[in-house]
């Protein structure tokens, strides 16, 4: 008989995750009814909250603040143990003392995006109007909405101009959107492995993920929290599919090849014979422990809708006209989710609008995920760019 091993149920039944959605283990900025967030869909969202973490110290001139924007499934826990998983922060390699985003020089802020599930208002949060979890009643949000919320947070922190906005993937989209929407408030932008519009292929992958979530009977039309379930199988499949797009053929081959998982011979079953299968299943099941399924739907949708040029008569360069922000754009050779051609399109638009832009394509076989991994050439560029921008900004060498 064929043995079928399905994806494991999450070890934590989601209590930690659900708790974080409203009561994050981080700082929180609250915005009352008098401070609504004007969403692109036409709705004024109020009240709402943005959960965030900071590292390092804001200097007296308030001139050394860097906003780090996280990617689709990231959160504000850049460089501390994750409150749900207990694992190290997602960008430890990049942020810390002596790291490219040097916490002894810069004041690092990272907020959970609007629509996220780690403490910023999103579909997993309680809707104060009903006393129930928002679920699909939460309005559709966009990347510009996320950035607008971040700007309100920066206002509340009393910071006029950010020294830098830094982000990869969806975080890179936010970084670019910051420069387009608030050019006078962004001194420099480091946009990594991203694009100014989501490609058809990427929308297709996101739709695949969303359909996997919605096809799970435990999704319950989005009201799984009320009904005491969570579509962890569907969400895990979505994560598995997405995870493949974050890697590359070469990286998968190098890491796993056709090697077997704890066995010599195939079992002639649908068990996870191959290491790569086992790895993907682990990625799927560990993801659902910490992520809300509806949040995944909303955030992927926000990325799909992203198209800066569309907001500027179809001409990308117009989005950056007169922008004095200095840009550094980075792409990775093996990234097929946000290939170098996308980065070049941004660079060309910035060139056409006379913006000050640097661009480097880093050679690596690590795929899209390279921006989260130990890639020294990438760190060198990031460090050099921020350092030289810091000099122009008048940030001293000896700390903040």
């Amino acid at each position: 008989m064929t043995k079928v091993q399905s994806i494991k149920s999450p070890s934590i039944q989601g209590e930690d995750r659900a708790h974080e959605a409203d009561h994050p283990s981080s700082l929180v900025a609250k915005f009352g009814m008098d401070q609504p967030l004007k969403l692109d869909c036409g709705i004024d969202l109020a009240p709402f909250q943005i959960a965030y973490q900071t590292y390092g110290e804001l200097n007296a001139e308030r001139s050394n603040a860097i906003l780090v924007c996280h990617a689709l499934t990231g959160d504000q826990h850049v460089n501390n143990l994750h409150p749900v998983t207990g694992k190290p922060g997602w960008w430890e390699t990049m942020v810390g003392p002596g790291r490219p985003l040097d916490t002894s020089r810069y004041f690092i802020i990272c907020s959970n995006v609007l629509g996220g599930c780690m403490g910023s208002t999103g579909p997993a949060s309680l809707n104060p109007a009903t006393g129930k979890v928002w679920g699909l009643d939460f309005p559709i949000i966009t990347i510009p909405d996320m950035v607008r919320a971040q700007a309100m947070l920066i206002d509340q922190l009393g910071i006029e101009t950010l020294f830098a906005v830094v982000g990869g993937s969806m975080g890179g989209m936010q970084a670019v959107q910051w420069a387009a929407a608030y050019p006078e408030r962004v001194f420099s932008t480091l946009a990594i492995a991203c694009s100014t519009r989501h490609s058809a292929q990427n929308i297709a992958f996101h739709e695949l993920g969303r359909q996997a979530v919605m096809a799970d009977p435990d999704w319950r039309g989005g009201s799984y929290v009320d009904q005491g379930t969570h579509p962890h199988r569907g969400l895990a499949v979505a994560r598995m599919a997405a995870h493949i797009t974050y890697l590359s053929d070469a990286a998968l081959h190098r890491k796993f090849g056709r090697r077997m998982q704890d066995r010599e011979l195939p079992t002639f079953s649908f068990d996870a014979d191959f290491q790569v299968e086992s790895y993907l299943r682990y990625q799927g099941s560990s993801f659902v422990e910490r992520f809300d399924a509806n949040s995944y739907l909303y955030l992927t949708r926000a990325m799909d809708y992203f198209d800066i040029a569309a907001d500027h008569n179809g001409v990308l360069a117009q989005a950056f006209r007169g922008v004095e922000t200095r840009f550094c754009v980075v792409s990775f050779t093996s990234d097929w989710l946000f290939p170098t051609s996308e980065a070049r399109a941004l660079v060309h638009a910035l060139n056409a609008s006379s913006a000050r832009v640097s661009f480097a394509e880093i050679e690596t076989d690590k795929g899209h995920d390279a921006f989260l991994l130990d890639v020294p050439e990438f760190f060198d560029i990031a460090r050099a760019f921020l350092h030289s921008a810091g000099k122009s900004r008048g940030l001293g060498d000896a700390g903040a």
Partner: protein
Amino acid sequence: MALQEQALPLPGLAPQASTSLRPDHLLVAEMVEPGSRVLDVGCGDGDLLQLLESRGIDGRGIELSREGVNHCVAKGLAVVQGDADTDLGNYPDDAFDYVILSQTLQATRQPKAVLENLLRIGHRAIVSFPNFGFWKMRLQLLIGGHMPRTENLPATWYDTPNIHFCTIKDFVQLCDEIHVKMERAVALDLYGRPVPLNLPWWVWNMFGEQGVFLLSRGGKGR
């Protein structure tokens, strides 16, 4: 070919005037008007761009090698990784006052297309290149019977990135052919000194180790 008619005010160009700055860089920098916008194509480690920025010129660069881009970014320069042959087409018309191609023309696949692009993107172009008509080159081919190698061009024929060598004479002919006007032309000898102006044209092509040209649109035939 009215090369000798060009005016050549070149103060401080003798090699001893500067120990670290390359004479051809100083010459190029001197050709650029202050306050202008410049694109340096094939900017290498960014030495020329840095020199230009120190003179209040708004400079941008394109560089093929990642190491070069790294160095440039570390110096605070705005440099984009790219290829002169493929990426110039993406720059809009009239985007810069000057586009500089320093010691790079001979390494491009399509020098003619590159030159045309330079003068589409910039109002003026400054092009410098090693002169293959230099007497040492000629001598090596004539007497030695092998492809020339010099102090500045040490690569062997099989591993050189320089695939389109030309002489000063060749370059001038190309400029005529694509209606490019030569506003200034300077030949530098092996020591980076300008070849004296009053010497006949063939002397330039013989004793100029490299040529530096300031070009603009609308030369002969227009």
